[in-house]
């Protein structure tokens, strides 16, 4: 019975294609803008070209920095995003976008942001969706345009967005966030230079608590408020207020706009059609002969040919999205401290963590040792990120070990002298100073050489 329903849902429910078209256009344009902005700010150079070593994701050590060809990669990615917006050679363009964008992100995990991961994941999903069946250049070239598309295609994007919000909300249910208003109690008072609210509200304890609890409730509730037709307009206003507030308070780049525009997907075709009409009339301004009509044959709907492999891939995709964020339960110790299972789990803005980590290179036989100046090898940004994340520390320890081995040093041992402060707690030793990190290997296993946090954070 259930299976039948599911089958029916996938085969026979349809929806207007405007929503997906609007989503495609906005996504493409936002990505184009993001990439140009990234370039304009000089980040391609400072984040991807200047560093002498790159921190790799486990399993993706083969991803190399392309040096100055990184610019080329950005150009390819930008063109692909423009083509996505236009709906030109859509399938090919979105695949190229996904690959090039993800490659850029894989070059160096120093720059990891949840919203970059979101873009990668979303663009992967979009590779499976018929986002070019309406209001696209592909239609113009084909001469056909669809009036209906399978409902699941739009729903899949909604589902992904709901997961992001809901999981981000769940992650906020912890004692630091709710009972201590941490880290907002550190961050907000430092926003003293915002006009009007900076020296007033941002300094108030109850405001920190209000925003902590508000953020948690918002994240958990917003998927349902967006899904429900009655509450949708209210929810969308909340989306705008929430994300623009975060935009004002924190340096989070394009993420607020991505989330705001993405939320439009929840709306009925009425609004979407209006948006497309606006775009049409805007485009018409550029046409020499506005009366000339383009003949595009309308087809009522397409049967989306999803191969069994694609179907399985999609199911796996969502299973992964639902389950992977919970992998932390398999690790002992404090998640925010050990960061085992922290990334790719929609844990957004949850910790204020700072570290100071220095490395001691020792000759195991002569016992002679010396400390390394991190800035000889790392950029300021890399040093900052390395100092409080165990996998960075391990990777860097190996880099240093190999580097000094290459210089002819013998019997090398690498020890870390590392202190980290988390969410306003007094800094404490982070890495066991007696463990030779050069002998430790990266794996999915628990890192026993991280000294446990001498406190407990309760919650998800």
């Amino acid at each position, binding site marked *: 019975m259930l299976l039948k329903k599911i089958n029916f849902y996938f085969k026979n429910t349809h929806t207007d294609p405007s929503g997906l078209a609007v989503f495609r256009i906005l996504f493409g344009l936002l990505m184009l803008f993001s990439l140009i902005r990234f370039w304009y700010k000089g980040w391609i150079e400072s984040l991807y070209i200047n560093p002498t070593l790159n921190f790799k994701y486990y399993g993706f050590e083969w991803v190399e920095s392309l040096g100055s060809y990184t610019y080329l990669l950005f150009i390819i990615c930008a063109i692909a995003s423009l083509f996505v917006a236009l709906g030109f050679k859509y399938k090919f363009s979105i695949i190229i976008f996904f690959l090039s964008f993800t490659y850029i992100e894989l070059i160096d995990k120093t*720059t990891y942001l949840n919203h970059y991961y979101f873009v990668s994941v979303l663009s992967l999903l979009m590779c499976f969706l018929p986002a070019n069946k309406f209001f696209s250049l592909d239609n113009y070239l084909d001469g056909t345009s669809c009036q209906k598309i399978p409902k699941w295609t739009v729903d899949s994007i909604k589902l992904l967005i709901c997961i992001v919000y809901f999981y981000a909300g769940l992650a906020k249910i912890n004692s630091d966030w709710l009972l201590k208003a941490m880290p907002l109690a550190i961050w907000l008072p430092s926003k003293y230079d915002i006009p009007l609210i900076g020296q007033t509200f941002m300094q108030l304890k109850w405001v920190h608590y209000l925003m902590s609890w508000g953020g948690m409730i918002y994240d958990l509730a917003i998927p349902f408020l967006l899904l429900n037709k009655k509450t949708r307009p209210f929810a969308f206003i909340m989306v705008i207020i929430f994300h623009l507030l975060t935009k004002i308070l924190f340096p989070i780049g394009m993420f607020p706009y991505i989330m705001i525009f993405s939320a439009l997907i929840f709306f009925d075709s009425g609004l979407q059609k209006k948006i497309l009409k606006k775009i049409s009339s805007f485009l018409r301004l550029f046409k020499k002969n506005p009366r000339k009509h383009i003949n595009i044959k309308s087809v009522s709907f397409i049967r989306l040919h999803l191969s069994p492999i694609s179907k399985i891939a999609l199911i796996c995709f969502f299973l992964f999205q639902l389950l992977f964020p919970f992998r932390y339960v398999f690790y002992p110790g404090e998640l925010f401290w050990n960061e085992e299972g922290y990334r790719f789990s929609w844990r957004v803005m949850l910790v204020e963590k700072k570290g100071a980590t220095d490395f001691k290179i020792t000759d195991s036989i002569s016992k002679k040792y010396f400390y390394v100046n991190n800035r000889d090898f790392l950029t300021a940004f890399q040093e900052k990120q390395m100092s409080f994340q165990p996998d960075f520390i391990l990777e860097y320890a190996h880099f240093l070990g190999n580097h000094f081995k290459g210089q002819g040093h013998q019997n090398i041992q690498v020890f870390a002298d590392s202190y980290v402060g988390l969410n306003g707690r007094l800094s404490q030793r982070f890495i066991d100073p007696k463990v030779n990190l050069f002998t430790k290997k990266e794996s999915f296993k628990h890192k026993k050489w991280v000294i446990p946090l001498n406190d407990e954070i309760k919650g998800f």
Partner: protein
Amino acid sequence: MIKKISLALFIFIFTFSCSSEDDNQSDFLSNSSEIIDSVVNDDITLGFDRSAMLVFWADNFIMPAYKKLKDDLSVLKESIASFNEEPLQANFEIVREKWLSAYKTWQHVEMFNIGKAEEIYLSSFMNIYPVNEDRTTSNINSGVYDLENPNNYASQGFPALDYLLFGLGENDAEILEKYQPSDNNYSKYLVSVINKMEAKTNTVSNDWDSYRDTFVVSTENTATSSINKLTNDFIFYFEKGLRTNKFGIPAGVFSTDELPSKVEGYYSKLYSKTLALESLYAVKNFFIGKAFENDALVGDSFQSYLTFLNAKKNDTSLSDLILSKLDTAISSVTELSDDFTSQINTDNNTMLLTFDRIQSVVILLKVDMLQTLNINVDYVDADGD
């Protein structure tokens, strides 16, 4: 209707947030903040008065310290002039004495690497050690040199004077011999070095007269604001100028072997501890806001800032923790020999222990204090999560 409201709201906040992204506030923002300022009564300001702190820093630390250094250098210059006229032991003693007091004042200045000092690389002209003896000697012998050349950074400033006043021979007689007859190449080099030091210091000190007003209002939480830059300078100085240069490098923390000849004030064999202690006192006074050369005057400082933010760690205030660790470090330094070179040669472990105690202050400043103040150590601007 709802759509219209949300559109209006969207446009408003969008413009607002876009403009706040810029470091230089746009007209829209500054206009609106003016209006807001006139509406909002100053009394309800709940934040810490950072501008008052900057004023206190400028008027009671930075400017008087530069002023003092300027005076000290001019006295030193006069003593050198008298010595060059009459190169006698008595005059030589006076030069050494004036050198030491100026060098001690310098320990109060080095951490303020901001504004003109940063722009003209003041520290590079004043305190790069160890001295490049070969280059200094060849400069003296040839009589032709350009002290602006970065290759000559290690051949001038206080360390070069240290070498010229204490390092040219086995004993005073041998050293004095080098300055005979008067106005020879050695005397001339002394003059060149002090002239360069004085000129550079005067440039910075004079610039503060006009820079002060810009400095004290720059209270934003951005990479380029005075408050963030000076905080970073302070911590950078403590870690690099103090911990690494005065202790770490000579004790061999950063090399496989000890490098006892790399101490500050190497040639005098007398003053490395004096200078290090002076620098620690300078740091401590700045931290607690005890005005330069005026212990009775206490003003806003990191200590009061941290107290305002109510930074507590396990029920102890963070500033108390920092101060107690700092005092431990200071008393540890007090135990060392006056001459760090002989300390390292005879008992380097005590030196290393002192380094560790200073390092524990570095951790508290770099991790805990910066986290509490929410000031970034790095100036890479990149998006956050």
